[in-house]
């Protein structure tokens, strides 16, 4: 194998499908050769290293962010309700305080007790779901009033003519 590879040209050996049969040393050598060829062909400008300083001045051409200008569609006294809705949507500045309140309220929106109550009823409804049809009536009666079930057996009532 090694003797064969000597005869093959380097260009052929560099091909992908030839790489499998190569041993580590020739592989390494080939790689180095390739690197050298690439770096020889690589052009670069002989310039002093350009050092980009961080730009500390940001330019802003518009007045809108500077003066916190509002959106340009305005309607008064309900002349155009659509635009009045838009005004609320596009000018959120004034509602900022309200929003904060909302957030704080949202955090305590559901108290622990409320959650417990909610789950309590959930348990019942799940229980109902898994109960069989006949049992369901019993379950609901039991839940609702704890009334002992009356022992009326259901019988077919013949309709009167």
């Amino acid at each position: 194998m090694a003797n064969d590879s000597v005869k093959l040209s380097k260009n052929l050996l560099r091909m992908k499908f030839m790489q499998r049969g190569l041993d580590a040393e020739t592989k390494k050598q080939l790689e180095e050769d390739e690197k050298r060829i690439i770096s020889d062909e690589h052009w670069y400008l002989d310039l002093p290293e350009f050092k980009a300083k961080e730009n500390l001045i940001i330019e802003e051409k518009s007045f809108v962010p500077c003066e916190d200008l509002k959106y340009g569609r305005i309607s008064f006294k309900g002349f155009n309700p659509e635009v009045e809705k838009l005004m609320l949507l596009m000018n959120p500045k004034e509602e900022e305080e309200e929003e904060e309140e909302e957030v704080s309220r949202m955090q305590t929106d559901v108290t622990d007790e409320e959650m417990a109550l909610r789950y309590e009823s959930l348990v019942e409804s799940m229980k109902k779901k898994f109960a069989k049809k006949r049992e369901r009536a019993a379950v609901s009666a039991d839940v609702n009033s704890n009334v002992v079930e009356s022992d009326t057996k259901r019988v077919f009532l013949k309709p009167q003519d």
Partner: protein
Amino acid sequence: MGPSNSNNNTCERSCCRVAMFSGLKEKVGEVLLPGDEFSLETDDTISLTEHVKPEKVVCGPGLRRSGDRLLVCKSGVLRHKQPNMFWMDSQQRRYVPAKGETVIGIVTVKSGDVFKVDFGGSEQASLSYLAFEGATKRNRPNVQVGDLVFSQFIIANKDMEPELVCMDSSGRANGMGVFGGGGLLFSVSLGLVRRLLSPHSGVLSDLQQLFPCELVVGMNGRLWVKSSSVQQTLVISNLLQSCDTMTAQQRQQLFRRVAQGAL
């Protein structure tokens, strides 16, 4: 302009920015002229004790960056907003487009897939027919020559043709697009437009008490007014046009007289 007589707490920060900041801050509220400049002296000495993150300065309209210096390019009053935004408050009537601003344009040419829109600037802006809410290649928006469009600049710089769109980044119109039927369009100074749109605007709160009406305010100095009758529309347009050169007191007096039905 030096940092010597600036407030003491800024001296503690061993940042190079301090020199420029205080120089700028001292001039806030003063009249500056084009050509005035603030140099941004970067000290080569770096403090070893603390690593100070350099602060960024935002220079708004009327200020220009040139290398490390800040140049004034419009005459006016220097304004400042926390934390470090500076701009020139100036009066002008010529509109220069800026990215993101909303303007009232008039469609002048309809050619293939773009409309040409006059917005009062040096050049007409292009507006793609696809830049409307719900527009597709099949479903073209109904825009005619002479229509008014409320639209937003997506490209606005000194080297390129400005480009407008009639929707936001999520593809919704949000009040932009073709409008205007039975209203009146007129022009005012750019300063008045900014006064109208500023939060807690006195002019608007005065106007609010008159009649039910609708306004479209373009940053290019164009105003469009619609009200329930032609007379009321004219009254509002005349009021707004005269507001430009009035003090708050004069304005309130005039508005009161209108509200009483004297005009």
